């Protein structure tokens, strides 16, 4: 059966440290946009930690979760692209083909999760950061849409290696940059079609939930709810 890549993020383990955000920037040649542009809302964080404050001081709690491209099974961003730059791969990913993108930005409007980012200008890396670019990932020019690809370069590299060695891919053999970097091991990546993989097992947990499920996008990212949303205060009570 064809592979269907998916991810599980355990919100109980996530500390909101944002190491995944930095790792993603490093792995995927995402440039920083500068202070002025970031203030205008043009920063490109393929994975971001969303944070909502609840309650008033002194009973404030922060609820946070990492949000990245959900690689939706029925992605609303795909049919609206006039040049097929956004399409569905056979392995369940939402592919973004930079060369086909002419920058209509319709896909970004259609995405309910706001996980698509646009290159408003040509990306700039101050020296010597330009020497740190990942050769496996293309650099996107001005006018092109980009988003999380589940580190498709790593997926492809692992698949090619496994095929060359004439063996099947092992679960957990490789991981996207964010999953690899996550210190509390809150993120798990793997093949959802393999019932033995860890990601499939966790996706069947009774804490499993999906983001904006009611929009009918069939996301491949599953979130495991915290048992209690009260943070560290009541952690002692609940453990």
């Amino acid at each position: 059966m064809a592979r269907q890549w998916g991810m599980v993020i355990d919100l109980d383990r996530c500390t909101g440290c944002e190491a995944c955000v930095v790792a993603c920037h490093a792995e995927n040649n995402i440039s920083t946009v500068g202070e002025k542009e970031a203030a205008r809302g043009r920063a490109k964080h393929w994975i971001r930690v969303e944070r909502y404050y609840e309650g008033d001081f002194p009973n404030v709690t922060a609820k946070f979760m990492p949000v990245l491209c959900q690689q939706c099974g029925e992605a609303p961003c795909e049919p609206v692209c006039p040049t097929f730059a956004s399409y569905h791969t056979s392995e369940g990913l939402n592919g973004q083909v930079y060369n086909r993108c002419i920058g209509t930005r319709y896909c970004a409007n259609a995405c309910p999760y706001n996980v698509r980012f646009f290159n408003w200008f040509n990306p700039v890396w101050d020296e010597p950061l330009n020497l740190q670019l990942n050769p496996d990932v293309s650099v996107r020019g001005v006018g092109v849409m980009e988003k999380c690809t589940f580190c498709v370069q790593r997926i492809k590299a692992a698949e090619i290696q496994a095929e060359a060695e004439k063996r099947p891919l092992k679960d957990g053999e490789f991981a996207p940059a964010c999953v690899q970097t996550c210190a509390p091991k809150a993120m798990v990546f793997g093949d959802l079609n393999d019932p033995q993989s860890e990601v499939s097992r966790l996706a069947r947990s009774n804490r499993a939930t999906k983001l904006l499920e009611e929009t009918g996008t069939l996301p491949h990212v599953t979130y495991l709810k915290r048992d209690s949303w009260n943070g560290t205060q009541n952690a002692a009570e609940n453990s």
Partner: protein
Amino acid sequence: MLQKTPEQINEDLLRPLGTTSITYRLVLILLFIVVAAGGYAFGSQIYNGIGLAGIQRPVFWAFYITNFVFWIGLSHAGTLISAILRLCNATWRRPVTRCAEVITVFALSIGASFPVIHLGRPWLAFWLFPYPSERGIWPNIRSPLLWDFFAINTYLIGSVTFLLLPMIPDFALVRDRAVSNIRKKIYSVLALGWSGTPKQWHRLETAMHIMAIAVIPVAVSVHSIVSWDFAMAPVPMWHSTIFAPYFVAGAIFSGIAALIIAMAMLRKFLHLEEYLLPIHFENLGKLLLVMSLLWVYFVASERLTTWYGNEPADMAVFWMTQRGGFSPLFWTMVFCNFIVPFPLLAIKKLRTITGCVIASIGVVIGMWLERFLIIVPSLSHKYLAFSWTASAYRPTWTEITITVATFAAMALLYMLFAKFIPIISVWELKAGQHPAATEELARLADGQSRLADRLRTQREAGAD
């Protein structure tokens, strides 16, 4: 109707083609400068990047798409007046048809340029065209933007032919009266050798009839498809089935307003007081009133169902427009689209040419705001609140310059057209002046003789 001889009609309607005043030339130069500024803004965007515009994440569409929808909407003037009134045999449309059709063609051309202007990589806009590319890929027709491509091109070709076909006899007229050799040559080519035999007239009128039937469904489909650019995306307050009829009604609304403004300016600057009569403005004013009420109906329906449904994402956008940051624009829009036009158009005494023009200017402003308010509040407040705009969307100099430049371009193109081609269809006007006229004309004649009496008494009063 004040029966004018054909010579008088020729004289009046062809005078603008001959004389050119200094004011005309100055205004033309000024408009050209503004358009050039718009071109410079567009060039800067290509050179530096689309980031020069004020758009941001998540408001990925703003001024340019507002303008796109606005100008395409404005282009529905010609279709309504020309095609529908032609099919209904409404004779009062005769002086008005070409003014309207010209608005359609130019507004459509301007509107159709915006999908190119707003692209991140506009030099690749030709990828929307279905051709067997060397990349082995065709465009994606599941995308509403491709539907836009087909619909707008069909409508543009249809409108251009709808405009050009009845111009052939008028080109023949100008050709026969042309003084300079170059003009005569050009108009001869354009007139296609028209001589005016019964067969030619019959075929032309049949063709116009078929075109009128064909272009109405096309116009309806064009703005429905433009509305589906929004309605097909799962965005709060976009994903609504009412969008197609709502947009078509809004388009006709703004189109009639633009037509009234254009006609008023033509009447004043080309001295067409005896051709573009108060009755024309009154009739168009009544249509504008109906469209204003229809607009209110659609907006009220949409907002009532949204409010009653009380879905959190939709309500966030709803309150933003009604009470939040966008409320000044929202209430200005209601003021311009309904509060001002309604009394001016409903009360007969106020439904003068001036009243209609004031109402129309309000409608043009209000409809532009309506397009803006459909796009930007919804995009700023999608489902995940963390991504609601960090800083509110503000247009930058490129967006403002290009917007102003499009209005200047419209005026410029219109002025150039009126200079070289009679803006009132001469043969249609003459054909409407027959002794064997319908009772509609008799009614118009009655109104016309009252006008004549009024003008006479005014003249006599002024002479004292």
